[in-house]
């Protein structure tokens, strides 16, 4: 049984349709790239999976113990108010709030988990730094760590590498590949980076008015430039 399945989704805003006929399914440990041009509805799909938006039609099914609020989400836009005072540690810990717990403080386990996540992403040297004083790449990594706090099952990353330099981009993709292979975390990666898709993806979903595709990555790239 698939961990996540979308059947004939229609996406849009207030009656205005953005994308139709989106069909795909993922198993645990899959690595999916979602491709498509600007405005094709990739972020809208992400928000529908997270139940932030209502899909206009179709079904989204979760199985294998996955729930919408257990998805680790990395938004396309970094929430950055210029004067917001928050340390890296505070932000990363806040990702684990979906584990519930009515006790008003973070438990010892939560703190240790945050520590482990920071260790994995090599963020420990930054843990007490102020978020707004970090570079764009460092901020993305902190937000990736926060999304990792929210999930053990599925990471949904909306253009995590946008505006990063080649070195930082490569590093980010390596971290994500490791999480996928070592912890069997399912990855949904929204991106414009065809090279990365070729290198890392098991499956590809291409959204677009006249070039919809879902299938194995080999089949997508065998078609050559047909979809790209």
């Amino acid at each position, binding site marked *: 049984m698939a961990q996540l399945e979308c059947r004939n989704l229609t996406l849009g805003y207030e009656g205005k349709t953005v994308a139709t006929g989106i069909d795909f399914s993922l198993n645990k440990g899959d690595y999916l790239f979602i491709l498509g041009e600007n405005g094709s509805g990739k972020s809208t799909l992400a928000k529908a999976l*997270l139940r932030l938006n209502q899909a206009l039609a179709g079904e989204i099914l979760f199985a294998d113990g996955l729930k919408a609020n257990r998805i680790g989400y990395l938004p396309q836009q970094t929430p950055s108010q210029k004067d917001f005072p928050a340390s890296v540690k505070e932000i990363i810990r806040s990702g684990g709030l979906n584990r519930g717990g009515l006790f008003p403080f973070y438990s010892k386990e939560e703190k240790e988990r945050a520590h482990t996540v920071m260790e994995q992403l090599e963020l420990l040297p930054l843990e007490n730094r102020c978020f707004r004083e970090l570079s764009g790449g460092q901020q993305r990594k902190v937000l990736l760590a926060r999304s990792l706090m929210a999930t053990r099952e599925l990471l949904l990353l909306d253009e995590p590498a946008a505006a990063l330099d080649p070195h930082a981009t490569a590093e980010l993709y390596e971290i994500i590949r490791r999480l996928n292979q070592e912890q069997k975390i399912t990855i949904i990666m929204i991106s414009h980076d065809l090279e990365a898709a070729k290198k890392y993806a098991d499956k590809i979903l291409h959204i677009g008015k006249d070039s919809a595709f879902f299938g194995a990555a080999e089949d997508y790239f065998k078609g050559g430039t047909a979809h790209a």
Partner: protein
Amino acid sequence: MLEMLQQIGHILSYPFAVRALIVGILVALCASLLGVSLVLKRMSFIGDGLSHVAFGALAIATALKLSDEMLLVLPITVIAAILLLRGGKKAKIRGDASLALWAVGSLALGYLIINLFGNGGNVAGDVCTTLFGSTSILTLKTADLWICGIMAAVVLLLFFLFYRQIFAITFDEEFAAATGLHTQAYQLLIAAITAVVIVIAMNLVGSLLISALVIFPALAAMQVFKRFRDVMLCSALVGVGAAALGILISFAPTQAPIPMGATVVAVNLVIFLIFALIGKFKSLQIRKSHI
């Protein structure tokens, strides 16, 4: 100097002075805790804006010849505050603009109503009341003390129980919603409590003082601290400290009586300037250590 301290100590043996001190401290505590998120939400001037809304409501109440105007003024002001604060990320008009919209709109509407339906009355006096507080802080009753105590307890409880959620939602509402937090419910809860606090405090100490109590401690804390928890704690300490100090200073025996509200604001201003200097100094040091 010693004599002056003795004099202040002597004044504190009068219940009215103790009541002023307690109410001042409790209002400052609530305002400085709520102030951090108000400043971050671009709502620094909410106290001032709401006093204009209260004026508009007062004009309607007068035109309707209500016996107790507060029955209309309080609910309208609280509702306005909730609508202002609840907006969150989805609001089409943000912070400062929507605040100005409400303030200017109600002022004009109120003035219009008074002129159309006005029956003379003491309009100027009523306007002053909404701006500077209806009860002078020196004539507080025991009931006011109770109201303040309950208000402070509710605010403290809110921050104690939901501190993590408040942080997550203020920092990134969308992510918080994605992880299943009921962001709308929290926003509404915070907005409602903030609204009630500001409206009550406005009546006790006046909207000018409440604006200062909201803005200064939060800004002072943000000059020095970079962590949300530290900013909250520091803001509360500064707010309480400045209020206590300001009120005590205003008890000092001088030729002319020292106005209490203005003294509290002045102390806040001085503390803010000191913190701003410390902040500058700190960032210089960090830059040096990086070279």
